[in-house]
């Protein structure tokens, strides 16, 4: 077992799988609309135990499974996610302090043996690499959070090149964030198809078609239509920022199922070429398995390419 679970108490439903070895990389997973981290990324941690060639990379990687309630609009969700992202980028291991120490208890004073000492055997160095992985709406939340952060950095620093080369510790987390690699599964960054179209997506299991109708009845989901201001403005702002600054965190790799039925296929003008997987659809594309290791390869292989770039 390469990783063990840790609570992230400030973020309800979120948790992390922490590497036993000193980590170099943090991967943050963000689920889609009305989803949850446990079912969306159900077999990621299991597959990590099974992969051969990438095992070393994954064993030096902490996995954060972010969670949010789909009750607010994208900018609000993105702001909260940005706070989480900053915590990971800034503090490294300290983000899991709540369960790193003694356990809360009803009567008080109850603790479970010696608390785990992260610094003793894996250090407290900040991460060297960040990989942000989003499924569906999760990708939109990530992109909006990065747009906000990059815009704020640009506003504060007239000369971005010199800021990037600067080594002052105070802003190192932001330098890490703007170098993030983006790996999206079926991202909704070009918007969702009309929800009712699911009803006639005959290749899909009926359970998924009905679930799509359920999602489509939520007005917040309709804010993700391709012509909504949220989707339109985010694309425009991100493309402008990339055009001016060429930051890696604004450029995404996207993987879709061949039978994608929820969102429009494709990416922003400057993104890496979109990839598709035969036989897969919106819900299945982000779930690796023994016969489908591609999601795992997509996250780690492509990220290693861009890290070296």
């Amino acid at each position, binding site marked *: 077992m390469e990783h063990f679970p840790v609570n992230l108490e400030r973020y309800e439903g979120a948790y992390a799988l922490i590497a036993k070895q000193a980590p170099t990389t943090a991967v943050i997973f963000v689920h889609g609309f009305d989803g949850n981290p446990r*079912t969306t990324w159900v077999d990621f941690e*299991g597959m990590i135990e099974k992969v051969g060639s990438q095992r070393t990379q994954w064993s030096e990687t902490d996995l954060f499974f972010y969670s949010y*309630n789909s009750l607010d609009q994208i900018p609000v969700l993105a702001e909260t996610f940005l706070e989480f992202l900053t915590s990971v980028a800034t503090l490294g291991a300290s983000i899991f302090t709540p369960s790193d120490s003694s356990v809360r208890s009803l009567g008080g004073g109850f603790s479970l043996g010696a608390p785990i000492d992260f610094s003793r055997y894996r250090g407290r160095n900040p991460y060297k690499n960040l990989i942000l992985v989003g499924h569906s709406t999760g990708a939109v939340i990530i992109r909006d959070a990065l747009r906000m952060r990059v815009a704020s950095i640009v506003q504060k620093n007239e000369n971005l090149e010199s800021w990037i080369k600067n080594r002052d510790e105070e802003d190192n987390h932001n330098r890490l964030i703007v170098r993030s690699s983006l790996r999206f599964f079926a991202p909704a960054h070009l918007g969702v198809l009309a929800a009712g179209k699911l009803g006639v997506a005959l290749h899909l299991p009926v359970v998924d078609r009905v679930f799509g109708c359920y999602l489509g009845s939520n007005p917040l989901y309709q804010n993700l239509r391709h012509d909504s201001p949220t989707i339109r403005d985010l694309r425009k702002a991100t493309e402008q920022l990339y055009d001016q600054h060429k930051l890696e965190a604004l450029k995404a790799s996207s993987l879709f199922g061949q039978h994608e039925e929820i969102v429009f296929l494709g990416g922003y003008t400057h993104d890496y070429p979109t990839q598709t997987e035969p036989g897969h659809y919106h819900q299945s594309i982000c779930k690796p398995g023994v016969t489908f290791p591609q999601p795992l390869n997509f996250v780690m292989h492509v990220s290693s390419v861009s890290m070296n770039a």
Partner: protein
Amino acid sequence: MPDDAAHSDLSVKGACLTFFFQERVLPVLERVEKHGSHDFDSGELIESFLWLHHGVEIDYFPIADSRRIMYDYFREFLRARVAVSSGGHFETWFTPPLRAILDSEFAGRAELFSAGRFWTTSRPPSDVDALFQQFLLLANGFAQNRKARPLLQVLATASDSTWQNVIEENEFVPGVERPPIEPLRDVASPNWTHSGFFATVDYMKAFRWLNLDVRQGFPHLASELQQYLRILKETQQWRLNFGYPRERNRFLQAGRIAAEAYVEAFSKTEVSDTKATVNNFIKELLELMTDWGAPIVKAAGA
């Protein structure tokens, strides 16, 4: 250094136990302290004891600290055990192997966590801890799902008249936490159980996915491991007890009204045959329910 390695190993096991305690045991204890014990809370406490038991067997949880949890909260666990029996749920919620473990462990005649072991003559395989962790994480997420929990609580413990009021009149049940209210559009008869129903189906699909993947990854599972994986499923099956007609029919009823509501909302534009779509949905749902005890042949209520 060996000392460091031993420290790390113990610390990691302690961290796993801390995670489990905070995420799974403490919330139920807090609810019981605040609102008093209900049958459903008792079922959850018993389930958490069983997860502890299974985790200790494979050395995923450290035995000494796991025992400490039990000693510190033994009164609450014992009350839960008694409540499940007096509520008439012990035989229906827990399978014979689980009942044997509970009977033996709560009788106090042997050391805690020594009963019902699967590996008696050999050590558990080295990768079983990773498998256990995967199933545990998924089950924990389901147990604390704020949408699914209220539906399952009513499904498992409400009287027939209360259930009918929930389904037909959209009534809330006193003592059952309300799920988050979601905005809806174009849905003629929204019901608070809908979101919990879809969250449950999401879990059932994820469980099937994981289970299938494990079996593909380990095509020749040793019999002990097969039994162990089966007991992990049976440990949580009391929530989705579809071997019994009452629970099975209630879930199908909730599924049918949810499917009708949302398919109907789109029927005028995109869904051509509402009735056929709903019937096919129920067929697929029944197939998913077979993982949780529903008979493979067509069941009542379908």
